[in-house]
């Protein structure tokens, strides 16, 4: 804690993460970072949002503090809280506060999962004030010049209850992510899972069919991440059927009919 440099070092990304740019998102993000503009990454789960931000953090040479948001998360989980030790109360910074003080990229993953009253703490950070008030401590932190806020947001979960407030949305520049095109997805899957492109091709085909089912029994089709998982299992010598069953069919749905449909798809493609 005493040495900010050491603290920050643990958040640094040392090796280049594999990222295959889909379009011009790298340039766009770099431009946004140049003016420390808050960025929102939109897209279905498992399409590479988190990998992208890791890659960008590595490229820009900034530490990355990731917070996975969940519905019981409160403002204190982000900002920090008073704790008790032998001497009395001590303040402990939350991850957002650490990033603001020391100049990291703070990545709030799946921000809609957090309750709306939690997300408003980022408001003063995301306009030209760039400050973080710590009410409980009576402190106002001016953000480090390297600090940037990035959030991710899966529009698939959208509903009145889990949606961003208008006042939150409008503070961000947004990059829209989707599943990669067929050929690119094959490249990603075979590279990440270490399998032959022919098998990756098969998996990508299966995924494309499963994505047809979005809204017809599935909330989302099989993601690129799922395909990588399936590919890794196949790489360990598991048969295609079993690998798909374990990494695609069973995780995607509990509905017996939909599972059978997915199995039909797999057997039709194989």
């Amino acid at each position, binding site marked *: 804690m005493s040495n900010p440099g050491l603290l920050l070092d643990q958040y640094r990304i040392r090796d280049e993460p594999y990222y295959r740019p889909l379009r011009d998102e790298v340039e766009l993000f770099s431009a946004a970072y140049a003016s420390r503009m808050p960025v929102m990454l939109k897209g279905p789960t498992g399409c590479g949002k988190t990998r992208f931000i890791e890659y960008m953090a590595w490229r820009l040479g900034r530490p990355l503090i990731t917070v996975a948001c969940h519905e019981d998360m409160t403002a204190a989980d982000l900002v920090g*809280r008073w704790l008790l030790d032998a001497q009395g109360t001590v303040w402990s910074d939350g991850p957002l506060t650490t990033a603001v003080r020391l100049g990291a990229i703070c990545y709030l993953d799946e921000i809609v999962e957090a309750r709306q009253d939690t997300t408003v703490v980022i408001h003063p950070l995301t306009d030209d004030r760039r400050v973080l008030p710590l009410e409980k401590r009576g402190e106002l932190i001016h953000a480090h010049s390297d600090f940037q806020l990035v959030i991710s947001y899966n529009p698939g979960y959208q509903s009145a209850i889990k949606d961003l407030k208008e006042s939150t949305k409008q503070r961000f520049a947004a990059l829209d992510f989707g599943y990669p095109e067929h050929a690119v997805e094959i490249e990603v899957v075979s590279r990440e899972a270490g399998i032959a492109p022919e098998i990756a091709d098969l998996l990508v085909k299966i995924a494309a069919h499963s994505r047809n089912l979005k809204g*017809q029994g599935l909330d989302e089709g099989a993601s690129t991440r799922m395909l990588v998982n399936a590919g890794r299992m196949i790489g360990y010598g598991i048969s295609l059927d079993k690998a798909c069953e374990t990494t695609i069919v069973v995780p995607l749905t509990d509905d017996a009919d939909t599972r059978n449909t997915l199995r*039909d798809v797999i057997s039709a493609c194989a």
Partner: protein
Amino acid sequence: MAIAQISSLENVRSGRRLAALLRGHDDVGSAVQATRATLERRPELVGRLVIWDVAVRDLFEANLGEAVVLNFLRLSEHWPAQHSVHDLLAIGRAVADIGRGAGSRVAHATLTELSKVLPRLAGAGEVTTVLAALCQLADAGPESVGLAVSRLEQLLGHAGAEGFSAWVSAGLRASGGRAARRRAYFGLEDALSARVLALGRTGDDFARLEKRLAATMVALWNRKPRFRKLAIPPTPVPRRTSLAAGLVGLPETFAGFEGERAESIYLAAVAHAGAHLVHSTVRFPVGRLKALQIALVSLIEDARVETLALREMPGLRRLWLPFHTAAPSGQATAAGLMTRLARALIDPDYQDPDAWVAKGRALFAAASDRWVDPAISREIGGLLGNDIGQMRLQFNAKSYVVEPSYRDDNLALWDFGDQPDAPSETIDLAVDSVRIERREDANGHSTDDTAKPDETLRARASAVALPDGLPVATYPEWDYAAGIERMDWTTVLEADAAPSGRALDLPTDGDAMRRITRLTRDASIGRRLRHKAQREGDALDIDATIAHMIARRAGQAGEPRVYQRDAPGPRDLAILLLLDLSQSTADRDRAGRTVLDVERKAAAIMAAAVETANDAIAVHGFNSDGRERVRYLRIKGFDEPMDAVVRARFAGISSSHSTRLGTALRHAGSYLGERRAFRKVLLVLSDGEPSDIDAPDPQYLTEDARRAVQQLRRRGIDIFAFGIGSGRFARLDRIFGERRAFRVPRIEVLPQRVMQLYTELKK
């Protein structure tokens, strides 16, 4: 040994007691002794005779006449060894019970019928299930036991013991305590009765698989055709799948395919249909083609689309091939050769010596670079047709049916045009016409009902004059002009809604349904609870901190439970949906749907969704005919599941009379008042205009309803209104408040409105 002696001693004593009881009834007495003697020789009964004696005694003391006892003795003597003796004794007890309720004739008939159906009830507990159902019926509807018993063999043959039991309890609930309705139900005159019974069977394969087939079609082909069930015609020609105008018609069963095989043939049929939808891009003009040529072109086209499909999804071959069973056989017929050609074209391993088949194969293979072009089917089919003609093989268009059975009838491939001089053969082939059963379309909107003119609907509604129900409560009404509340001004007549013969079908996979279900499940609407003295939390709990510090200074090592946090409490919600059933809800919108249709569907979707979320929901309806007759119908109670009976009640509600909203609100409020729930929600579905024959001033009932709403809100009940239909609903805002009155012009809007509702509920 000693135990055996004691039991045989008991046995003798019990026999003596029974004989003493029967003294003076010599006929019965001697018959009982004779039967007893027979039973004593049966090893499985040793030691059980004492209980048997009790059963006989019970039956005798039930005073049902000697015939019943003698009948039971007969049954005992012929009791099949493979059946448990306990079942025999249970029958004795049950018949005594039934006799007490329904009389000795019915008891006698029950014994006779039971002895007939015994072989059917071989499964464990099946006899008990049937007896329990009969006793339940004897208890609640003694007049109907005879009706049910007289058809027992037929009913059990149809539905089995479990199905029978379900049928009985559904009947008792559906008839709402009315004997006439019970008699209609148990006499099988009621359509609902037949339907509930049919559910007990495995059900038609199509209905069982429809959801999965639709999903498979989307997954494989990204096409969303509507599926229709095709009734099996009473002709020997087997029914095939039929494609027409975005519809996929599937036979309700494929004869000869059961269980898993049924599943695969439906899947094969759907995969094939999808291949047509995607790859059969043009329709061939029929022109002057003969039936044989049409059949052959269709056959090549089938092979063409399947080949294209296999390029994309090679695994489909495993699905289709098992149905291709044709093999070279002695007598060559046109139809036989065609089936073999069909196989040759998709099964690369198939060997066929026939030159025509080989030629077909070669022609098809030669066109491989043009497979994407439908014209090749027309060319190759035409050539092959000429050959068949030269081979002088008979082709009977009337008996021809596409093989193998998963393939469709191929009528959709052809453009018949309107040529008056089309050859009659062609028409014969087309005669296998699509007889589509009337059923709900994608919107769950009954095609039957829309077809009927308004008048019929109204006439029917008034003909089935609503059973008024019992007067259960009186309520005050607010006179805004006079500024007084008139005590006991209105009377509520309450009854269960009458079920219709046809249960309402719920769209289980509809988009709206799915979204609402998820929304309801995920909505956290319980109160938030503050947990103090926690190990972890957002903030220090000051009291706990001080206590802890004191303890530490005093040298005690307490647990540092010094934080507090807020967390959502358990869900605790009761919703009452109140439907406006007044005459105005029979008005139709531009799409021809009545407000009632939309109300009914919205209510059914919500009820199903809320039930999925494990919250309590009731659905009630109302209309009125003056202040003395505010009819209040219970469609679904809080504790009733959305089963066939409730869905039949949904289907049975109709529009009539007026809307005395305030009184209905108060009565619904009294239901919610009794519920123990943190959140009580009253949701009104209405077309929005309170009115009644004895209230000429439109504002009067509006103001009364507004007051009722305010009173209920003070009692902690949240009230929301959905204005159904395309009106503006100016009054709705006045009554319920702007933020709590939502407009639902079409059923598709419902999910958004439900979202709004939950957002409001969260506040």
